[in-house]
């Protein structure tokens, strides 16, 4: 069976809008994905029928809201195959999840002279928090480079690992290169050296395998808005043994067990890490997105995305002077490119007037751009609803834009 893309497109209302009078061709999915009607409905339904604060009141609406919120936690748990539902912490997104670990794990486990490793292809969100942590705790960090194809230099990584390495952080899929890193191998190598591993899965959950136990990830972070869910909600998965040993990230309501003037004791997992009234509807919307995805066959989704990706790469490479940057052994859904003599901002602007939405610039990965020796790239990134026609429009629009830019 192949994915019924026509049917899927019908589920996403925004795909039928027009920009500048042209049908929207949305190719900025690595930045954020569009939402199916089911997600929009779940959010409207929450506010229409059972909006209420959770975990505290004994009234009917509060019970409904609490149940839906906690059911969403179990949906996430199943989706990534976590062992316990309390290993799922709701955060604002990937960025907050990583900062939570950098702060709370760092507070206890990172000491002066310890070492942290991350990679040259990491998003600023999985780069800066570790620099800040090392500064705060007097620790040192190493950055694993990538080769000219966009594959991590595992040989260098191996040499950087040593008995002082406490933590390794890397993105499973790079948002700037599209490289799918060999996560299992990277994690195994870190564990062999006695280090703990955080996987930034912001670009991975929706495109590749996402079984935290098969990966043996200690921490695993992703954002709802990149997997067809709402913004403002994300997930930190952590193995119970680490989460238990970590101090809270923020203090406030919800995260406490008992509060007295002398001393406060903390709530159990996951609430210890969820201070204050949480984003109640966020998990509900995100769970609706996961339910939507799970009603599809993931193998078919991947096959479809890979077919459109291969088509895009082939068609784009036929354009004179076009260079694609991510050529890793394994890659997914993301095509970063530049055209000789053409500024990415100029191309992006002209594509926009044709209804084609791509991302231009450094994509929050300035170290990658420095390594590639460019100021920025144009990035087309795919989701399950993109089809071959989208690529045809992209390519035709590039040709039209070049007529203006190369006069």
């Amino acid at each position: 069976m192949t994915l019924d893309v026509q049917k899927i497109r019908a589920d996403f209302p925004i795909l039928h809008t027009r920009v500048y009078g042209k049908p929207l061709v949305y190719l900025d999915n690595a930045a954020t994905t569009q939402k199916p009607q089911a997600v929009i409905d779940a959010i409207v339904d929450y506010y229409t029928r059972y909006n209420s604060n959770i975990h505290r009141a004994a009234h009917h609406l509060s019970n409904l809201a609490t149940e839906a919120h906690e059911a969403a936690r179990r949906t996430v748990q199943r989706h990534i195959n976590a062992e316990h539902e309390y290993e799922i912490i709701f955060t604002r997104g990937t960025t907050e999840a990583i900062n939570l670990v950098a702060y709370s794990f760092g507070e206890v486990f990172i000491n002066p002279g310890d070492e942290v490793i991350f990679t040259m292809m990491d998003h600023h969100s999985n780069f800066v928090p570790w620099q800040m942590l090392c500064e705060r705790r007097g620790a040192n960090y190493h950055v694993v480079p990538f080769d000219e194809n966009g594959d991590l230099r595992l040989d260098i990584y191996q040499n950087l690992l040593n008995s002082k390495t406490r933590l390794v952080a890397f993105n499973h899929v790079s948002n700037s290169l599209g490289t799918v890193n060999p996560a299992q191998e990277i994690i195994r190598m870190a564990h062999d050296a006695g280090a703990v591993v955080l996987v930034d899965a912001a670009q991975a959950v929706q495109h590749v395998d996402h079984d935290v136990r098969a990966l043996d990830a200690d921490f695993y972070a992703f954002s709802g808005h990149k997997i067809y869910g709402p913004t403002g909600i994300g997930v930190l998965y952590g193995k119970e043994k680490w989460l238990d040993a970590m101090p809270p990230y923020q203090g406030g309501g919800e995260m406490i067990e008992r509060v007295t003037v002398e001393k406060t004791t903390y709530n159990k997992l996951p609430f210890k890490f969820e201070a204050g009234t949480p984003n109640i509807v966020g998990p509900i919307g995100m769970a609706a997105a996961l339910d939507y995805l799970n009603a599809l066959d993931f193998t078919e989704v991947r096959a479809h995305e890979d077919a459109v990706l291969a088509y895009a790469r082939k068609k784009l490479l036929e354009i004179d002077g076009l260079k694609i940057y991510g050529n890793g052994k394994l890659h997914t859904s993301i095509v970063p490119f530049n055209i000789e003599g053409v500024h990415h901002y100029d191309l992006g602007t002209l594509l926009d007037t044709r209804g084609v939405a791509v991302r231009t610039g450094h994509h929050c990965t300035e170290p990658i751009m420095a390594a590639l020796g460019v100021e920025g790239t144009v990035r087309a990134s795919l989701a399950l609803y993109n089809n071959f026609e989208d690529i045809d429009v992209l390519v035709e629009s590039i040709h039209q834009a070049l007529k203006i830019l190369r006069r």
Partner: protein
Amino acid sequence: MLTIQEIQAQIIEDFSFLPEWDERYAYLIELGQKSPPMAEENRTEDNLVRGCQSLVWLARECHQGVVYLQADSDSLIVKGLAALLLQVFSGQPAEEVSQADLHFFETIGLNQHLSSQRTNGLLAMVNEIRSFAVQCVGEGS
């Protein structure tokens, strides 16, 4: 010499003959290409206004309360936008530059390029020009 308001009105009129986006951008790019190139010695780190998307160089001079500007960018479109900005501001009394209501970008539908400080350096450039003009007013008196 035309005032800032008159120049803006003229730009708006010029663009009104260009209903298609392709025509507008083609015209903009041409403006950028035809504008006098920036003197090499002015392409300094000091004159660099760094946007998230493109680089803009802005050279400023103040003579007797009048503002003189040169600009360049690695992006053709931003260079064209900068050329428009210079048409409006360069050679104008600093007093006027510091107070002028800059509305033509919006009227010709190019406001998106000014929408965020981080995008392309254009807004940062406008802010630079304005604060320079304030300084220049002080020097002129």
